């Protein structure tokens, strides 16, 4: 499988009164057609900023300071805004964190799907209306005709998220960005939304980047996982590989912190919190929380090294020991 989206050494900074916040620092990863790539990390690890950077929607005072974004052969960072508008919502779609407030409160949900189709597909009103209802049906909204005539406040959170997914998929995008799509929903509805995403992703062959802080979600839905900590990419691997052989001390800590119902062991919370990202020093950003920290970790940022088939890790300690085969 070839890479659909290649993110190379991407950095995003926010200029604040307290100094420069380095929200995303040199992240390199790729998404392939037909796969679900999970991005996990604690709050503040830069996951959401990375997502908005892919759509080039980082708001001032935020700024993409370096790196490359290649999507279907285009350099997204070099495209003029007008061409980007043609890509957003058409080739790359976003499923937001808060579905209800992401819908226009003064327009029926059906019309919002219609407008999207008319904007990107140039459909006439009638065709767009039919396609919109078909789309609502595809995301398993019961009685789609009636639902299309309702407003966001008349629908439940799960229904709103289905509408957002319908909008995201209506234009058959090649890349779907789902930014914690289940945060605002209760667990059982969240699980159904994820299942729906997985099925529709499979049907359409689109790549999905799923941002979450829930490793359980990752284990169930993703093919590959990228672990982010404090704006840096710590580890990237196939999902089974990551859970069986986590290499980065942070990933190991994350995996250990998953509650298990079949074992009577005490949970191990990760020591410390995500460090402040204001005027950061060079070196690994996990160093203060890391049990295996070496002297080099403070001085120099660990490079992303290959640690097996498709398994990459950014850690000095891993490079030193013989964990790598």
């Amino acid at each position, binding site marked *: 499988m070839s890479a659909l989206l290649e993110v190379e050494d991407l950095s995003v900074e926010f200029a604040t009164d307290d100094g420069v916040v380095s929200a995303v620092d040199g992240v390199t990863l790729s998404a392939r057609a037909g796969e679900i790539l999970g991005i996990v990390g604690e709050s503040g690890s830069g996951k959401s900023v990375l997502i908005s950077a892919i759509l080039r929607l980082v708001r001032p005072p935020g700024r993409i300071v370096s790196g490359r974004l290649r999507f279907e052969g285009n350099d997204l960072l070099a495209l003029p805004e007008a061409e980007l*508008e*043609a890509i957003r919502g058409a080739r790359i779609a976003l499923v937001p964190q808060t579905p209800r407030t992401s819908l226009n409160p*003064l327009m029926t949900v059906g019309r919002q799907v219609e407008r999207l189709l008319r904007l990107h597909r140039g459909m006439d009103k009638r065709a767009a209306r039919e396609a919109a209802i078909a789309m609502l049906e595809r995301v398993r909204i019961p009685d789609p005709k009636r639902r299309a005539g309702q407003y966001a406040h*008349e*629908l439940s959170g*799960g*229904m709103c998220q289905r509408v*957002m997914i319908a909008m995201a998929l209506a234009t058959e995008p090649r890349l779907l960005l789902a930014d914690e799509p289940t945060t605002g929903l209760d667990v059982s*509805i969240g699980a159904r939304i994820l299942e729906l995403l997985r099925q529709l992703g499979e049907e359409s062959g689109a790549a999905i980047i799923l941002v979450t802080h829930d490793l359980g979600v990752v284990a169930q839905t993703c093919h590959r996982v990228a672990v982010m900590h404090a704006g840096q990419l710590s580890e990237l691997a196939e999902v089974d590989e990551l859970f069986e052989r986590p290499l980065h001390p942070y990933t190991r800590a994350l995996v250990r912190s998953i509650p298990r119902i079949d074992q009577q062991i005490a949970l191990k919370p990760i020591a410390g919190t995500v460090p402040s990202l204001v005027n950061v020093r060079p070196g690994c950003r996990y160093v203060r929380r890391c049990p295996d920290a070496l002297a080099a970790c403070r001085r120099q940022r660990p490079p992303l090294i290959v640690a097996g088939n498709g398994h990459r890790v950014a850690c000095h300690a891993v490079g030193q020991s013989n964990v790598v085969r």
Partner: protein
Amino acid sequence: MSVLAQDIADDRDDDIVAPTARWRRAARWLRRNPVSAAAIVVISLLVFVAVFAPVLEPYKPDVPDPMAVLKPPSWAHPLGTDGFGRDVLSRIIDATTLDLSIALAATLVALSIGMVVGALSGYRGGWVDLIVLRLVDVLMAFPAFVLAMGITAALGNSIANVAIALSMTQLPAYIRLVRGEMLRVRTLEYAEAAVSIGNPSWRVALVHLLPNCLPPLTVQATLAMGYAVLTMASLSFIGLGIAPPQSEWGSMTADGATYMSTGEWWLFVFPGVAIVMTVLAFNLVGDALRDLLDPRLRGTR
């Protein structure tokens, strides 16, 4: 597919307000606010008179009757006649059409321009916003009436120029209002969502965000209608508004004022009452709208 059944169960929200309930709610509100109800009746009457003026006028408004000069109110001339023998009631009715339509046209023009400029200025920000705000400041530096006087004095007092003058006095308020609302709504999540699906920024501002800025504008526009009528009458009163043969409330009041010392009171009282009633009615409706739209005031008293 038990999933489906569960989903249907999730979505039992049938709390959509039925249309009949909405009317009933409106009727109850009107009963509780008799003053606002009266103001609405007055405005409806004015609109009715304005539309059917030619039918309602008992005499031709601009045809003098030498046999009936300066007659006090009587059964033949309910509001009396003026110095040329023209029927005052007919002239007031005739003027209603002009006064209301100019005020309305001026308000609509100012509203449309103000909405678009304010929306883009607030959404875009940056240097566009800066320039727009400075221009608004310049317009606002003039008292509204002085601005209107200056414009009609410079352009000449045709009907179109009076309308232009009136809309220029309203414009800055709309721009400021929409711009302020835009600053609020542009940070809402659905604004970002609209950008993320590839809408160009003008469309996000005008199609998706502007409708959310409208409620306070309706209040401003209603109040502005009253002020427009008042300003137009004042312009005519000092001779910078509508030119004489055309009947207009302000110029009628001005004409009548010359008879003040000789006792023909009906010449200035009745057109004056028409002005006061109209302005008052629009102000009352505007205030009622403001109360209705402010959730903190809803349900009080």
